[in-house]
């Protein structure tokens, strides 16, 4: 069961609790479940799937502290996979401004932009943030299942992207090695 780091950026404290509550893992079977099965033949409810990721949450309430957290995470080699960012966080940066700054330090970060009422049209958001497949939107009040699936999708995608980048780097290194061998071999053949 993989674990991903998730950053919640919202000026509303209640929303932080909501994300944590929704995305906390199911209770794992305990001694009482075992006893109930032994005595009454009750089957304990199995968790949804063993591969559903777990999340480690950090909470910040304003754009600048979000930037500091992401900078720290990148510097320590423990990058966040996903950030939930609220579009409205008075009095500081709004969500779109915050995302611009987060991507400047961590372009691989998956982002879910949350809004109840948007000050931006979709066109304006794309204009400001560019064309990206790392951004999804979530309307408040949100649907709990959508949040769970969004977290699952974005973190899996982040992991896949990370593996692809790693594989690309390996392949490029191999390619470079091949080129080097090739150029080493050529002069010999020229002889």
């Amino acid at each position, binding site marked *: 069961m993989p674990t991903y780091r998730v950053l919640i950026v*919202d*000026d*509303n*404290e*209640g*929303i932080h*609790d*909501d994300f944590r*509550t*929704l995305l906390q893992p199911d*209770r794992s079977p*305990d*001694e*009482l479940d075992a*006893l*109930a099965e*032994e*005595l*009454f033949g*009750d089957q304990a*409810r199995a968790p949804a799937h063993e591969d559903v990721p777990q999340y480690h949450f950090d909470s910040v*309430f*304003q754009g*600048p*502290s979000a930037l500091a957290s992401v900078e720290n995470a990148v510097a320590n080699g423990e990058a966040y996979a996903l950030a939930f960012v609220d579009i*409205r966080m*008075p*009095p*500081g940066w709004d969500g779109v401004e915050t995302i611009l700054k987060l991507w400047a330090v961590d372009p691989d970060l998956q982002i879910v932009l949350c*809004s*109840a*009422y948007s*000050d931006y049209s979709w066109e304006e958001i794309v204009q400001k943030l560019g064309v990206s497949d790392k951004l999804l939107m979530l309307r*408040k*009040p*949100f*649907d*709990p299942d959508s949040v769970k699936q969004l977290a699952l999708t974005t973190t899996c995608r982040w992991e896949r992207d990370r593996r692809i980048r790693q594989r690309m780097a390996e392949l490029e290194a191999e390619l470079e090695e091949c080129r080097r061998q090739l150029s080493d071999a050529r002069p010999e053949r020229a002889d």
Partner: protein
Amino acid sequence: MVPPLVASPIVGTALAHVPGHVVITDADLKILYLNRPVPGHEAEPEALVGTGYLDLLTAEQAQTVQAGLERAHETGRPQEHETVVEPPTGGRQWYSTQITWYETDDGAAGMMCVLTEITPQKQAEQHAETLRKELIGATHRASMAEIATGVLHNVGNVLTSVNVSAETLIKELDRSRLHLLGRTVQMLDEHAGHLAAFIDRDPKGRRLPLLLSQLDQALTTEHQDLRREVGRLAEHVALMRSIVEAQQTIAKVGNTVEPALPRDLVEQTLSMFRLDFEARFVDLVTELPDIGKVVLDKQATLQVLSNLVRNAIEALEGVELPRRLVVRTAVEGDGIWFEVEDTGMGIAPQHAERLFDHGFSTKRNGHGFGLHASLIAARTMNGTLQAYSKGVGHGARFRLTLPRIMP
């Protein structure tokens, strides 16, 4: 036929060409001379000579002319007023009327009245007034939209939490292990005749005490979780109510603007808290130079100022004497600002950035919408609201900056 009043042909021609209506009467207001028809009447000037001037006017106009003339007579100065005329051809015309009392050396006296048409100026003024009203309407609608947006955002946030709490409650209840208690009772019933033997010797019976103790723990935890979630739900419902309350407070913003002396506004605000200052031994210092009148939303400004002063008093309650409150106003650049500074508890750095958030409060009974509403009020007035504090124990200073619009 009245003898020609104006003997000199030059004066006569000049009078006839004065760009206005000249009316000269005797002391009984009988017309002696008209250079052109009386506004609103088609009769030729010659035909009106010898008739009463007041007969050509409405009762109201006649009254104004008489009053003007009396005053002109008493003061020796010309009197001016504006008249609306509705000619039979339709439309409205505005005239500025100047009334002078004259007395000649040989004892003749009477009124000289000059009417100058000001219809174009009046129409321009009315047009400007209509535009101003539309502008105020538009500003009002814009601020209402701003408020509605804020309310939607805040209610959206809370609804999300309500939704999550409700879902969590359902999930927890669905997964409750309360039913295990029923199963246990059922099992005990089945062995009602020989319970002691069952619990003592049966392999299942011997496990029952352990199951009960585990079940007790699980149900206690469950109960605590449910209690916590219901508490959260109740909090959120209360928050929604406070959002609606705050919205009703804010909705008053967008009042009409008017010229006011910033100093007066501060004094008006402080007068509301006089008893609080005395009861809490607050030393009040004001630095209020004359910075002239400024056009602003008086209601909204008073609302923000009283909120800042109330907060300052509460911050001062938490510290020992001396307790000092300073209120200042000043002009800076294109703006004016009001400052409320206290030597109270100050603001912790970790609270500083959330100070203006909706629902954020460090006060035990705070709702967390005072400063939030103040910030929105400041923004609605195209102003800013800023907080400064060097931390806990170092007091705080709030500054409301507004554009300096001269009346």
